C-alpha cells in the first residue's frame, strides 16, 4: 500500500520507511515559527526546561512580530520586546521586526523559508498555510513550540488523509477563497479534525501560488492538522527565486489510502460567503443577497487574502470610485513587501482615493486585537478566515467572510454585494 503526500513527508522526517495513520512518530523539523504572543509563552516555558539554554539551530527558527504591533499598549510592547531580546540572545537569524516583515504566513514564503517536502511547525493555527508549497505544516501551542525550539523535533500522530478533488474552471468573480469557503462548508468545522487534507484536481493545478495559499490557510477552519498541495513547476519557480536551499519534491503514491475522497465541482460554483458565526456557515452569494445586509466595515487583508494579487483585484474594482458613505474600509497589505509592491503599482493611491484606510501589515483587525475592532451591533464583511462570536471585537458584532472581490463590491454599495453584479453598479 502506498503513502499519501503527508505520510511520505512525515516518514522521511521520522527516519522511517513508512508510516501509518494513527502512528505516533518523533519527527525532525525544518523550521519552527512563533509570533510575539506564542513566543512570549514559549520562551517562558523554555526557561523552565532544565538543560535548555540554547535553541537547537538558530537558523531554523523564525520569529515574527505581527499580532499586536506596532505595539497597541505597554503590555503588548513588553511581549514584542521579550521576543526581540530572545532573538538577540539566541542569535536567531530570521527575526522580523515591524517594518521588515509583516504577517508571519505572508513573510515566510516571501523570504524563501518554506520549501516543498519540509516539515514546519508554528505557534499559530494558520501555520497550515505552507501546505500550499507541498510542505507539511501545522499549528501548535506554545509549550509544543518551546519543545521544538529546544529539540528540533516534535511528536506527531500521523493523520489519515482526506483527498479533495476540484474540477472545472471557476466562473466569473469566483476565486480560491470561494472554493475554500465551499470546502469548509462541505466538510464542516470539525469535518477534518485530526486529519490531513490533500488538494487535487485540474482546478487547483491551474491556481496561482496565492490561490493555493488562500486554500491551504483555511484547512484549519475544517479542523485539519494540515492541508497540502503537490508542488509543481509554479511552486518550484517561486521557491527557487527565493532560496538556494535543496529541497525534495514528493508525490502521493497512486495507491495511497485516503479515508475519504470528496469531489467539488467548481464550474457551477457561485461566489461564496460564510455567514455569522462559524466559518462553515457557507452560502452561495445569491442566497445571501436575497435580503439586504448593510455593513459598517469592510476588511481586506490577513494571511488568507493579504497578498498583492488580492489587492490588485480590490484596486481594479475600486479604481476611480468612492466607497459607500455608510461604511469604512480597512486594508492591511500582508507584508512590507506586499505594501511596497502595492505602492509601486499605484494600488495604495487608488485605495486611499476611494476612501479606504491603508494600515500597516499585521494581524490586529482579524483577531479583534486592534486597528479595526468591531463595536456592539456592528457588521463587517472581511477577507479573513474566522467569524466566530467576538472574533473581530464585540461579541455583539457580526462577521461575514468573502473573497476580496465580494468585499470590494460590498464596499461600493454599502451592503453585501455579489461582485458579478458590478457591471450594474457601473464598474
Amino acid at each position, binding site marked *: 500500500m502506498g503513502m499519501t503526500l503527508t505520510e511520505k513527508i512525515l516518514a522521511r522526517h521520522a527516519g522511517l520507511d513508512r508510516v501509518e495513520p494513527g502512528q*505516533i512518530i518523533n519527527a525532525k523539523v525544518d523550521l519552527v515559527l512563533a509570533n510575539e504572543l506564542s513566543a512570549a509563552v514559549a520562551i517562558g516555558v523554555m526557561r523552565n526546561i532544565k538543560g535548555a539554554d540554547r535553541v537547537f539551530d538558530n537558523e531554523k527558527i523564525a520569529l515574527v512580530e505581527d499580532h499586536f504591533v506596532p505595539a497597541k499598549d505597554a503590555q503588548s510592547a513588553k511581549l514584542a520586546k521579550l521576543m526581540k531580546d530572545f532573538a538577540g540572545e539566541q542569535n536567531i537569524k530570521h527575526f522580523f521586526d515591524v517594518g521588515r516583515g509583516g504577517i508571519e504566513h505572508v513573510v515566510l514564503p516571501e523570504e524563501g523559508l518554506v520549501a516543498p517536502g519540509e516539515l514546519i511547525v508554528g505557534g499559530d493555527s494558520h501555520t497550515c498555510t505552507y501546505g500550499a508549497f507541498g510542505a507539511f505544516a501545522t*499549528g501548535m*501551542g506554545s*509549550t509544543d513550540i518551546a519543545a521544538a525550539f529546544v529539540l528540533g523535533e516534535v511528536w506527531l500522530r500521523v493523520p489519515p488523509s482526506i483527498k479533495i478533488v476540484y474540477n472545472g474552471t471557476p466562473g466569473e468573480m469566483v476565486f480560491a477563497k470561494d472554493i475554500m469557503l465551499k470546502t469548509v462548508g462541505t466538510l464542516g468545522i470539525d469535518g477534518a*479534525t485530526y486529519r490531513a487534507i490533500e488538494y487535487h484536481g485540474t482546478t487547483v493545478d491551474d491556481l496561482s501560488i496565492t490561490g493555493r495559499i488562500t486554500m491551504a490557510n483555511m484547512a484549519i477552519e475544517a479542523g485539519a492538522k494540515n492541508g497540502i498541495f503537490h508542488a509543481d513547476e509554479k511552486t518550484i519557480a517561486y521557491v527557487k527565486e527565493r532560496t538556494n536551499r535543496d529541497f525534495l519534491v514528493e508525490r502521493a503514491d497512486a495507491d495511497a489510502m485516503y479515508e475519504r475522497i470528496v469531489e467539488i465541482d467548481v464550474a457551477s460554483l457561485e461566489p461564496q460567503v460564510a455567514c455569522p458565526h462559524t466559518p462553515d456557515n457557507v452560502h452561495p452569494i445569491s442566497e445571501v443577497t436575497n435580503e439586504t445586509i448593510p455593513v459598517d466595515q469592510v476588511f481586506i487583508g490577513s494571511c488568507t487574502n493579504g497578498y498583492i494579487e488580492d489587492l490588485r483585484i480590490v484596486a481594479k474594482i475600486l479604481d476611480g470610485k468612492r466607497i459607500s458613505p455608510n461604511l469604512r474600509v480597512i486594508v492591511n497589505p500582508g507584508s512590507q513587501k506586499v505594501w511596497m509592491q502595492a505602492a509601486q503599482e499605484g494600488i495604495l493611491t487608488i485605495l486611499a482615493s476611494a476612501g479606504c484606510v491603508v494600515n500597516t501589515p499585521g494581524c490586529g483587525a482579524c483577531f479583534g486585537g486592534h486597528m479595526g475592532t468591531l463595536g456592539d451591533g456592528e457588521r463587517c464583511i472581511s477577507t479573513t478566515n474566522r467569524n466566530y462570536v*467576538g472574533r473581530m471585537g464585540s*461579541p455583539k458584532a457580526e462577521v461575514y467572510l468573502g473573497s476580496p472581490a465580494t468585499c470590494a463590491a460590498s464596499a461600493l454599495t454599502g451592503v453585501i454585494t455579489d461582485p458579478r453584479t458590478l457591471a450594474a453598479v457601473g464598474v
Partner: protein
Amino acid sequence: MRGNAHKYGKNVDTDVIIPGKYCNIIDAAELGKHALEGLDAEYTSRMKTGDIIVADTNFGCGSSREVAPIAIKGSGTSAVIAKSFARIFYRNALNIGLPIFEAPEAVDGIESGDEIEIDPPSGTIRNLTKGTSYKSAAFPPFMQSLIEAGGLQPYVEKRLAERAKV
C-alpha cells in the same frame, strides 16, 4: 476533583474561551478573570473554584492560543468534559496540565448545576446529583506516558539528557 457542571454546546472556539484582545496577557490568574467571556460573560462570577465545564463536540476549535486552556485553568475550573476536543486545544490542555476528559455519554447525562466528581486515574465521572456514573475515553498510550511523566517539560528534559549521553 469535584464541582458543579456548567454546560455548553458544540464548537466552543478559542475566540470565545479567551477573546483576542486578552491574548497579550500571560499571567494565568489574570487570564482566568476572562475565561469564556465571549460565550458566557457571567461564567467567572457564577462559577466556584473546582467547577467543571461540560461541552458538546469540538471543544477548543480555532486558534492555537495556549492562553485558552491557561485561562480556563486560571479561572479555577478543575476540568473540561466534552464529547470531543479540537486537535491543538487537546495538546495544549495536556501540555499545561488542564485535565480534559472525552466522554460523550457523560455529557449527555449531565445538566448545568449537577454536582460532578471525577477520578482522573480511572477516568470515572460520577454525576452525584443524578446518581449516574460514566467512563471517559482512555488517552492513547503515548499521551498517557506523557501525562504520567508530568507533562511535556519532563519529556523534553529526558530527551535532552539522552542526547547529552550520546
